[in-house]
């Protein structure tokens, strides 16, 4: 099978350019600067039967579109008794910290959308995953919010298969097998936890199991709970603020399902409860040291 090396960014640019050249400028086009308009427009298109892939320039700007996504897109099928739906809608947006993004180019709003039944939320971690998940999201018959960690546009590089393939949504992937601690994350945070796994192995002799959630809503509870039942310890990490972040949802489900298997309270290593800072970003993000401290804490409980 022929393989080509793609940077994630090049992959997405190629996709876009290919779209422009193959399918024409009337099918891939710029919109005016109106997020609410873009979302509503996309929902209308999708409801009428066309495949709509809308892009919001940064996830931080999605909030004007939030009403459309939550009140229209998520509820269309339900409120019309399945007469109408906007399942052909996919909304893409770059999310996450990038090192210099400050307040409005660094946010991770997955928790806001995860609170909305009717939507799906997907976050890939690498070029191969992106292609499979994006194709699956576009073809999925539900509106999907596809968040791409923007720092990976320039950093992630993989040999991506040129053939068509999909990755099943709502399936988590166990990236690294382990026996002592279950670590759950998504997007860019996986790379941080990967490093923490190595640190834990070297310095603490602790074997960590790393799980990529991939789909935030609906998330793969079985894989995570099975893993926690095996290891007895859970660490969840994300860049979004701690309070009401998606880690809270994972932890509360796990404690409900695996209570008697838990050896220690589950740890959440997340961003602090402040607006994403400009100059304090290195202190804000859950870096490997904070995650390592949490691993130490839960293994020595």
């Amino acid at each position, binding site marked *: 099978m022929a393989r080509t090396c793609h940077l994630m960014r090049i992959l997405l640019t190629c996709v876009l350019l290919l779209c422009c050249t193959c399918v024409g400028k009337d099918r891939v086009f710029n919109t*005016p*600067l109106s997020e609410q308009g873009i979302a509503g427009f996309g929902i209308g298109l999708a409801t009428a039967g066309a495949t709509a892939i809308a892009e919001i320039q940064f996830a931080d700007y999605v*909030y004007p579109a939030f009403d459309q996504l939550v009140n229209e897109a998520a509820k269309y099928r339900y409120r019309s008794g399945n007469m109408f739906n906007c399942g052909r809608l996919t909304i893409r947006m770059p999310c996450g910290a990038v090192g210099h993004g400050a307040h*409005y180019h660094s946010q991770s709003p997955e928790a806001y959308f995860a609170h909305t039944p009717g939507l799906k939320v997907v976050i890939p971690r690498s070029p191969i995953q992106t292609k499979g998940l994006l194709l699956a999201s576009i073809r999925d018959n539900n509106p999907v919010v596809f968040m791409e960690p923007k720092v990976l546009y320039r950093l992630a590089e993989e040999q991506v298969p040129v053939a068509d393939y999909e990755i099943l949504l709502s399936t988590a992937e166990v990236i690294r097998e382990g026996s002592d601690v279950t670590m759950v994350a998504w997007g860019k945070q996986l790379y941080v936890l990967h490093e923490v796994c190595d640190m834990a192995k070297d310095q603490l002799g602790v074997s960590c199991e790393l799980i990529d959630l991939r789909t935030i809503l609906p998330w793969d509870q079985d894989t995570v709970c099975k893993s926690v039942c095996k290891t007895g310890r859970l660490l969840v990490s994300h860049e979004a603020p701690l309070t009401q972040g998606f880690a809270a949802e994972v932890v509360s489900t796990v404690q409900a399902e695996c209570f008697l298997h838990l050896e220690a309270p589950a740890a959440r290593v997340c961003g602090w409860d402040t607006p994403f800072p*400009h100059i304090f970003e290195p202190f804000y993000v859950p870096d490997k040291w904070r995650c390592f401290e949490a691993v130490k804490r839960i293994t020595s409980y």
Partner: protein
Amino acid sequence: MAFRLFASHLRRAVRSQFACHFRQNIGLVAPVTSRGISQQAEFDLSPFRYHLLDEVFPKTSVATRDEMLSYYRDMVTIRRMEDDSFALYRDKLIRGFLHLYNGQEACCVGMEASIRPDDEVITAYRAHGWTYTRGVPVKEIMAELTGRTGGCAKGKGGSMHMYAQNFYGGNGIVGAQVPLGAGIAFAIQYRGEDRICVALYGDGAANQGQVFEAFNMAKLWNLPVLFVVENNNFGMGTSAERASAVTAYYTRGDYIPGFQVNGMDVLAVKEATKWAADYCRSGKGPLLMELDTYRYYGHSMSDPGTRSVFSYLVGHTFCVVSHCLCFVKLSWKRRCPNCKETTRSYSIMQGSHP
């Protein structure tokens, strides 16, 4: 009469000597008369366009030497500050985002000359010029840009979030500051003060729904707000024509009277703002002002203006002849194809050098 003719000839002669980026009749600062040097001069203003308004602005403006020098000083200070910020960004001493105001200096300086220091101003992220004219020293602006505690927002805001007394920033989300401006104006009205709020936004933000919501509330309740579109003809790399169905932004207020001013002409901006501020202050309701201007750099430092999106502008310039003012491709002859005058202005891409 003879003096006016002489002065205008002198103006043209002088202007063709100096490379001039401003496509307007800036005129001489101090025309020399046979009796000595005058302390003031009368200047022709660039033409205005009106929407739901009669032709209320004067055709000329009288300015004193000191006034003109102070405008010049302010504009050059802003220009140099922005150029130095560019250099600091390249040296990685400024991180994050940087949206430069080069080319638009006449907007903030002209407007500030006509509003009061206790009037409120709120704008978007291209805010360094306004931060300066609102009274923040250059040192505090640069400290804020470099993330130091001596900055006007204690280093926590950065380029896009600078604040001062009667200056509400510095806002990152496009268009979000416009309803805020309407709200500030309502607070002023509620307290019975005779101040106004100037709410600025760009041509890209003019397509945001919340802007029209703010228009409606402002007109409904006769709020003392002056909405200002700093139309630099580009929203990032997208030209206004490709993003807006109607590019006459001064008419987009529909039921709100509006007017368009040449944003490169500091005196036109000053005169128009003086009239508009009095109008809003007297309780007649909101106004929509469009400043037709241009930015010489790209949208931000992530898009500094040297990439292919601006390639069609390279090698183009404005003909500086006052009755022509067309946008022409520079030929080796440097002759404007429209008016056949020889022009010596620089390419628009070198706009940062006076």
